[in-house]
């Protein structure tokens, strides 16, 4: 009896949150799934020409913009995530080892996290400026000719390198924060024991630090993969709504950018269904990779 009562009470307390979740999360998801399976959906009138099982998927998969978006998204994800995890790990270990100026460097590395991705995106774009940018000046010191990274008619490859560097740098901050707090939680005696046992620095890192930090590394890897699959703001920050260098529009389009672009064409019948199909495909990919990550973690993570 008592259980029944407390159950009612619990549901009552949950109600405000459930209503909000229902309106803003569950309804849009259901609606997105619905959109995928209707033909020629008209946003203004809410009408459609019957149901279809695969037409919207088929259309999206044959769309060149979607193919480009998929390629870019995968490239960004599988290069920037491992790169930033490894760099963040090395920086955290280094930060944890130094005594002087630790607070200062911690602040410096954390700054990207508290700044606006659009604003620093513009700053980064300028750093990659052909004539005045810091990057070309720097490689110029080694006698390398200025590269057209993000300027008029810049190639897809150059723009992608610049974008990945920017995303990697931007996502370092949070990773360093998590790794550093993880490192500070590791008992110093493990390191003293390893020292007495004549372990080299690289062995201490690989055999002690990484395994003991593995729960954090796993957490960061999973959330970073999910975040990277949804890359959008960084592209806007660096390239604006053209989604690419001037004269090479949409070269840096990502799946989420493609979905948002569909909103501009919402008057065109079927445009929203394409967006829904693209987002469901992305959702499926994210799900698969998270599942793979979890499976790997069962073997590799030591809690």
């Amino acid at each position, binding site marked *: 009896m008592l259980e029944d009562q407390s159950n009612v009470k619990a549901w009552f307390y949950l109600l405000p949150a459930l209503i909000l979740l229902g309106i803003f999360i569950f309804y849009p998801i259901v609606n997105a799934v619905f959109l995928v399976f209707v033909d020629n959906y008209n946003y203004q009138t809410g009408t459609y020409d019957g149901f279809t099982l695969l037409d919207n998927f088929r259309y999206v998969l044959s769309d060149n913009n979607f193919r480009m978006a998929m390629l870019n998204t995968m490239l960004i994800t599988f290069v920037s995530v491992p790169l930033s995890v490894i760099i963040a790990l090395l920086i955290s270990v280094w930060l944890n080892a130094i005594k002087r100026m630790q607070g200062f460097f911690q602040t410096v590395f954390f700054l990207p996290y508290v700044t606006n991705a659009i604003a620093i995106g513009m700053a980064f774009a300028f750093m990659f400026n052909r004539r005045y940018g810091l990057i070309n000046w720097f490689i110029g010191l080694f006698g390398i000719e200025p590269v057209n990274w993000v300027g008029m008619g810049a190639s897809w490859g150059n723009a992608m390198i610049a974008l990945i560097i920017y995303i990697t740098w931007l996502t370092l901050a949070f990773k360093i924060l998590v790794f550093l707090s993880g490192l500070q939680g590791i008992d110093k005696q493990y390191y003293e024991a390893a020292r007495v046992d004549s*372990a080299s620095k690289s062995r201490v890192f690989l055999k002690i630090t990484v395994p003991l930090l593995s729960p954090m590394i796993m957490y960061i890897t999973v959330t970073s993969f999910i975040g990277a699959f949804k890359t959008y703001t960084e592209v806007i920050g660096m390239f604006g709504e053209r989604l690419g260098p001037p004269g090479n529009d949409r070269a840096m389009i990502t799946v989420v950018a493609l979905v948002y672009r569909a909103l501009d064409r919402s008057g065109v019948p079927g445009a929203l269904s394409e967006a829904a199909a693209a987002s469901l495909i992305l959702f499926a990919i994210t799900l698969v990779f998270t599942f793979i990550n979890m499976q790997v973690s069962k073997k590799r993570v030591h809690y």
Partner: protein
Amino acid sequence: MEITLENLTKVFQSKKEEETVAVDNLDITIPSGKLFGLLGPSGCGKSTTLYMISGLLRPTTGKIWFGNEDVTPVPPEERGIGLVFQNYALYPHMTVRQNIMFPLENVKMDKQEGLEKAQEIADLVGIGHLMNRKPKQLSGGQQQRVAIARALVKSPRVLLLDEPLSNLDARLRLQTREEIKRIQRETGITTIFVTHDQEEAMSISDEIVVLREGVTQQVGVPQKVYDNPNNLFVAKFLGTPPINVFDGRVENGKLYIGDADIANYDAPDQEVTIGIRPEGFKIVERSSFKVDVDLVETIGRDTTLIIPHPNDETQSFRAIVDSEYGVQPGDKLKFNVKPSKIHVFNKETGELV
């Protein structure tokens, strides 16, 4: 290999520039192939001394010799020591085998040879059947043995143990201390261990040093230190139940507590502090040392008598007598004191008179 500590001093400096002398001018020679105990209350500098021998701490001044080699500037990884931490510091993500193999892999020993060596050492400490377990799946005593095996596997010149028994329960502690003694005998390795437990130190050490606030109080074979303490601190620190302390005096070659004549004692007339071990009392027919028994605790063959303290009625002292006497609470007894169990100290300095 003999270890010599020469004028070893460690001063810790806090952020506010306050200096704490943890170890003060220590001069000890630790004999080769023996089990040596660093004994003292917490904060006496015993662990600091151990960590200086390991090389993890650098001495402020002084030198450490391993045989004829001055190892003071040598980093821990090159000293050839095995160290067992108080909480063992076993790598939680590695199996017992991987833990024991770790030091061997560091020196790039051949894998097959390493596996054999690890198994051999694990068998020696009695955990050979647990090689595939993780530390979490082991009891405290088993973890302790893994830690000892990991320290021994690379055949160190010295084995260092930091409070090896403090994390174990009473029964396991007894068992493990025998085990440590056995392992030390079988390997013949010079072993230094730290403890605040005098019973532990006395039961397994070949030699002990008693430290107080970083200063050596006494070095020697445990029983000799117990029988002939240099000062009141050592006398009080060793023995359970602890030594009884009385205010007394030397007068005309005799030792008195109040009016009771305890023994003959050859020293100038003076006020003194008298220490008498609980087992130093004998019940006799005629003596001027008269007591009223307050409480009686009989444990096996010994009876502990709790008796009001002659200097202060609110305090009490303990005497251990044979249970055959059948002493009852409220009995009036007369005591003789065994001269070898009496220790007379200077009232101010606590030094032996």
